[in-house]
């Protein structure tokens, strides 16, 4: 059998070695660009990430972020000087909303990260192991799912006291069951696949099977859920901020801003409108991105 590689005389270039992955990526990007809502989601998320990264440096009134007080310019409507107007302490809302992006990004990452870090392994073990292990993991998960997230988080934060870190801990405690449920269901279906039985037949130990076979096949739903959860975590933190259990002043956290601003409706509508809009656009962006990812990562799309 003549050997293609040798006659070619040179080791395979990067392009040939990863031809199939590149083709796959081209397929993904072509499909992703096709759908308008996914692109909208991507642009919103990119803007959000840029703001979070360089926000505090490009902002017109940097010291307003740390709570400077200008009693003279209180509650001014949006103008050329203050694009989003000023709040009750004279702080420029535009700067505080931009700075708020970083806090929200931090909230989203910590909550989603912790949730996945705890939820995914538990889900995989519960799904693959079955028997009493699965029963007890799922009972605990159902327990946490039965108790609605907000009420539980509320109880936790009320006991730990307000503050961003407590807020994040509370939401993380409430967030992981979602992942357990998702991954357990997926693992149950993958476990039936022949390649798992084939791996067992060549003597692979359980951790090897979980790591090499089960987890990679669970990745696409996990990625979709994480991207959507980024948005939902920010929304939940804003909800807690609204009840007054979120970040302490003068931290520029969107939820707290909307909650303080609500008593200034309708006369100073811009004070609550812009942070509210910021929350809405960010969460919308992450969710649309997640939806777009789900469509292209869907197994059926791979075979086309």
């Amino acid at each position, binding site marked *: *059998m003549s*050997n*293609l*590689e040798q006659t070619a005389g040179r080791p*395979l270039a990067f392009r*040939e*070695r*990863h*031809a*199939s992955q590149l083709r*796959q990526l081209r*397929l993904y990007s*072509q*499909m992703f660009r096709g759908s308008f809502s996914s692109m909208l989601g991507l642009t919103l998320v990119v803007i959000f990430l840029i703001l979070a990264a360089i926000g505090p440096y490009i902002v017109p009134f940097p010291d307003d972020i740390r709570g400077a007080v200008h009693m003279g310019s209180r509650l001014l409507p949006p103008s050329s000087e203050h694009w989003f107007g000023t709040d009750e302490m004279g702080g420029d809302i535009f700067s505080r909303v931009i700075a708020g992006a970083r806090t929200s990004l931090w909230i989203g990452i910590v909550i989603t990260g912790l949730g996945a870090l705890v939820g995914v392994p538990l889900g995989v073990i519960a799904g693959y192991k079955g028997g009493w292990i699965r029963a007890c993991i799922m009972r605990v998960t159902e327990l946490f799912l039965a108790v609605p997230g907000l009420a539980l988080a509320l109880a936790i934060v009320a006991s730990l006291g307000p503050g961003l870190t407590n807020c994040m801990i509370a939401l993380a405690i409430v967030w992981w069951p979602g992942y357990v449920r998702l991954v357990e269901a997926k693992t149950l279906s993958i476990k039936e*696949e*022949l*390649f798992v*039985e*084939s*791996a*067992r*037949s*060549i*003597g*692979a*130990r359980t951790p*090897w099977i979980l790591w*090499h*076979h089960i987890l*990679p*096949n669970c*990745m696409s739903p996990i990625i979709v859920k994480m991207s959507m959860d980024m948005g939902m975590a920010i929304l939940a933190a804003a909800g807690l901020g609204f009840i007054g259990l979120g970040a302490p002043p003068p931290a520029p956290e969107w939820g707290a801003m909307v909650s303080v601003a609500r008593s200034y409706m309708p006369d100073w509508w811009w004070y609550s409108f812009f942070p509210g809009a910021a929350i809405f656009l960010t969460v919308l962006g992450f969710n649309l991105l997640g939806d777009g990812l789900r469509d292209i990562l869907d*197994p059926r799309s*791979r*075979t*086309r």
Partner: protein
Amino acid sequence: MSAPLLDIKDYTLDIATFDGPVHVLKGINLSVNRGDTLGIVGESGSGKTVLVRSVMGIGPSNSAVEGGQITFDGQDITRLDPKGWARIRGIRISMIFQDPMTYLNPLFSIGQQISDVMAAHERAAGEGGSTKGARRARTVDLLDQVGLPNPASLYDQYPHQLSGGMRQRVLIAMALSGKPDLLIADEPTTALDVTVQAQVLDLIKSLVDKLNLTVIMISHDIGAIATIADRCAVMYKGEIVEQGRTADVLREPQHEYTRQLLSAVPDIEAKPARTAVAAACRERQPDAPATLLEAINLKKLFKTQSGGEFSAVSDVNLSVATGEIFGVVGESGSGKSTLARMLLRLIEPTSGNVVFAGQNITGLTGEPLRQIRRHMQFVFQNPHSALNGRHTIGDAVGEPLRIQTRMSRREVEAKVEALLDIVQLPKLFKYRYPHELSGGQKQRVCIARAIALNPRLLILDEPTSALDISVQAQILEFLQQVRAEFNLTYVFISHDLAVIRQICDRTIVMKRGEIVEHGNTEQIFTSPRQEYTKALIESGRKTSRAATLQAS
């Protein structure tokens, strides 16, 4: 000769995909006269399903007709509006499908689905809707016509409560509810058991005579086509390479592809030229024990949902000599797969022992069990699911080495390339993903993976039944070559009698978990002792004889 009922003139169809348009049908010319039965044979991917579905206007959604025309009974039906199709589908042309399990709506009763179809036809034809009672009576009558037992009680049953054969009959009844002129059958027997296949083909033949029905039947199984089609066409890669009277096409195939197709069909009658491979192999391993694998009254009970117990394998004893190919044959549900998995300890037996090379491996767990696994490997039936979609072929083949040996990354790479050579696949495939390979290529990868640790025993669970006929022959040929080269012992499981006869030395026949007959393969085929074995061989012979057109 009156004008043909259905006339397809150089019909060309493309499907828009990511990589640009794919030419699925290239200039098809085909016609069927009233009362004829036309067979279309071709392997998967030849475009036969797309062709017949386009006739009914239910082709793939992103397809576009590039050229040509389809006329039915004088009317051009290439491009019709929904109203036009409503007067054709189910009334003038109707269709039956391959796997009855998925083509019946699980949530509606049989009777309701059929009477719905009738109601739709009445609405399309514009007459006044008949009462439910009348429709119910006609449905019961139809169910009776297709030979279903006590059709009245069947009316309110659900698809999952029926067997495969009965569901196919329901589909046929549904197709006939509009008294169509043309019936298209898309691989009606492929998903059924051998014995049931024969009955369904007889039913279709009787309907053709009784109702003066015109039938187009497509299948990849030449035997099935031969039994009922008087004219047939051979399709390959979107083109009709040959068509004519079935007898002429089968006896003197004109086109090169047709010849290759016919020769690949295993003939149950042919006596295999048994090379003395088994004996030679045993000499080369003087120290190997005479019997490599032995099962002592193995039993396996499964708990069913309703709490009862169902014995998949009851009290099986067998012994496999080193170097031989040990055949296990039986219909689906006979427990042959369960038995195979128990031999390899993938499923724990309820009771009984398995002895491998003299060592009782029933009680082994942990490390000793992992050691034993090196010597016994399993080749699965469906290669599409046996390879992890997220791993490259290189990972799949190299995995056993990475798990069981201390080989370094480069050593593993080298061994993988060697194995790919052995299974005659290009080295470049190391970087490919499973979904980029064909069925045959994937099975070769599975075989490479199985022999990576040069085991002594290979258990093959229907390795070829998921593949096309032409590819099946290559794989069987290749398996025998590997066995000889690596002096392996095979346990070969299949429901295809011709294949068993062709390559197995000794065979056992299983029925509902028990061995009904065992012995030398040749002796079983020439003088079967058990009634069940006789019936099995008889139905197998019928389809294969039709295929080779010997005087029955």
